[in-house]
């Protein structure tokens, strides 16, 4: 009984980590531009598939592949911002939403063309016996996923709170005009936000692929769930996105395990709609923060 519960809990934490990373990706761009980048899920897929390409197809060493994957994802984020977001500066919100959807379709098209429709997988980062806690089996890759997510969160926290660039990015989020006035290059910060969120997404994809496989059309679902994680904790709050991601991941794996596996995707969507309808500011947001936001 406990064993089964723990098993579901750990698998929930694993997928939850990825949702948390996608949610953080949403936040990074939202904070810098107030755009919701609906191509966020594609970055996760790119991470997984490129990692496969470098390790399995080109047979490059693990670390080199990881670095190359991260660089390529960052480059794709950069291209996306420079080619589509920047030229449309100050366009209305509807157009901005649609352009990110359009980019996500282009990315999916490119991925499908290069990788086809089959799911891809590569071996876990470390070989070894799975751990066992009260009979629940935990693969080593699960620990990698959770560990990497934790590391990303810590690094991002340090970046936004301790470095001058990170603080400048936060300043753009709070008030772009004022940021410009104190000499921050807002345009460069927007570019950086796209690179950063592409990288965060790709890291999630790299870590999860050995467990849950990766195929070209996983992006939209990941984006929806990551978005759900992000709004659950209040859009813009990274801490909220992490908690939201884990909650969704756990609920999802509990539903799949105890109720019906076909419904696992519906859980996140129903939560999403409920939050949007009743508490669009997020569950963990204080009243004063609520008043500062527009919906």
């Amino acid at each position, binding site marked *: 009984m406990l064993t089964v519960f723990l098993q579901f809990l750990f698998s929930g934490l694993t997928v939850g980590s990825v949702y948390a990373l996608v949610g953080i990706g949403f936040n990074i761009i939202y904070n810098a531009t107030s755009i919701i980048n609906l191509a966020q899920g594609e970055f996760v897929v790119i991470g997984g598939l490129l990692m496969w390409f470098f390790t399995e197809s080109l047979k490059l060493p693990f670390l080199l592949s990881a670095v190359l994957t991260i660089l390529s994802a960052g480059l794709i984020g950069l291209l996306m911002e420079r080619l589509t977001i920047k030229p449309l500066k100050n366009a209305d*919100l509807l157009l901005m939403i*649609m352009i990110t959807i359009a980019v996500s379709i282009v990315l999916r098209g490119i991925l499908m063309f290069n990788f086809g429709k089959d799911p891809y997988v590569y071996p876990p980062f470390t070989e070894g016996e799975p751990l066992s806690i009260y009979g629940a089996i935990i693969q080593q890759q699960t620990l990698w996923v959770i560990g990497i997510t934790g590391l990303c969160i810590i690094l991002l926290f340090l970046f936004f709170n301790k470095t001058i660039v990170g603080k400048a990015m936060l300043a753009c989020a709070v008030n772009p005009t004022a940021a410009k006035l104190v000499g921050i290059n807002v345009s460069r910060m927007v570019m950086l936000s796209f690179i950063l969120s592409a990288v965060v997404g790709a890291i999630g994809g790299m870590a999860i692929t050995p467990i849950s496989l990766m195929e070209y059309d996983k992006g939209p679902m990941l984006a929806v769930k990551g978005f759900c994680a992000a709004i659950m904790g209040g859009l813009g709050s990274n801490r909220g996105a992490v908690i939201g991601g884990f909650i969704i991941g756990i609920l999802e794996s509990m539903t799949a395990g105890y109720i019906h596996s076909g419904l696992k995707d519906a859980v996140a*969507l129903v939560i999403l709609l409920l939050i949007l309808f009743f508490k669009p500011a997020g569950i963990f947001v204080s009243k004063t923060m609520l008043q500062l936001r527009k919906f």
Partner: protein
Amino acid sequence: MTVGVFAGINALVAIGLCILMGYAGQISLGQAGFYGIGAYVSAVLSLHFGLPVVVSLILAMVVAAMVAVILAVPALRLKGHYLAVATLGFGEIIYIILNEWGPGGPSGFGDIPHFSLLGYTITSTTGYFYLIWGLVAVVMIFSLNLIHSRTGRALRAIHDSELASNAMGLDVVELKIKVFILSAVYASLAGGLYAHYITFISPSSFSLFYSILVLMMVIVGGITNLWGAIIGAVVITVLPELLRRFEEFDVLVYGLILTLSLMFFRKGLVPILVEKIKKLRGLAVVKH
């Protein structure tokens, strides 16, 4: 001819979305959900309950309208991104429901009766072509009347500024909900016709991709012009036939068309053409 039928079906959905987006300024990424509701409800009612197709089509529209009300009341308080994701979530939920509980599950079901009225059954593609484009004409006339009426002007006012329209005494929320219902009803009508035309349906026709396809039709045609929705529907439906050679590329080509038309023809084909014609006329007048 078959392509023509599909273009007509898509035009119905696109007209609805065009009114919603271009005139009321609300986005929906869940039109496939209503399209699917229309198809499944009408198909099941006529196949398993033996209702005449006309009745089942009308009931399907009623069901879609009711679902639209339930969704619209909370959803339309949301704006922009939130509304986009909420409607996307709705569409995906319908898709999952059809997969899990729809007759035949993911593989769908067939033997859906053809459209019939007053004892006369339409089975040929030509028949459907006339039926569907006839309906497109009816829907178009109704919609054009609507947007040139008081309601239409009110909608455009909402698009420009919700606050100002509110201050002028317009019931913004009520109007938005009505338009949302209208677009849902159009989509469900189209879905029902689709089901009775090809007589076999499966959930894959009602996925997120269809919602995006409709969005593309509206954008390519021009969101501020209803004729644009029809043109867009025809272009986007015929395009894959022309692009057959690219098979593997289709998703990529769709994406590129959408991206490029968003970036360079923000207004869409029809409004640009209208401007060109006006300019030419202007020149002709000057020459006189």
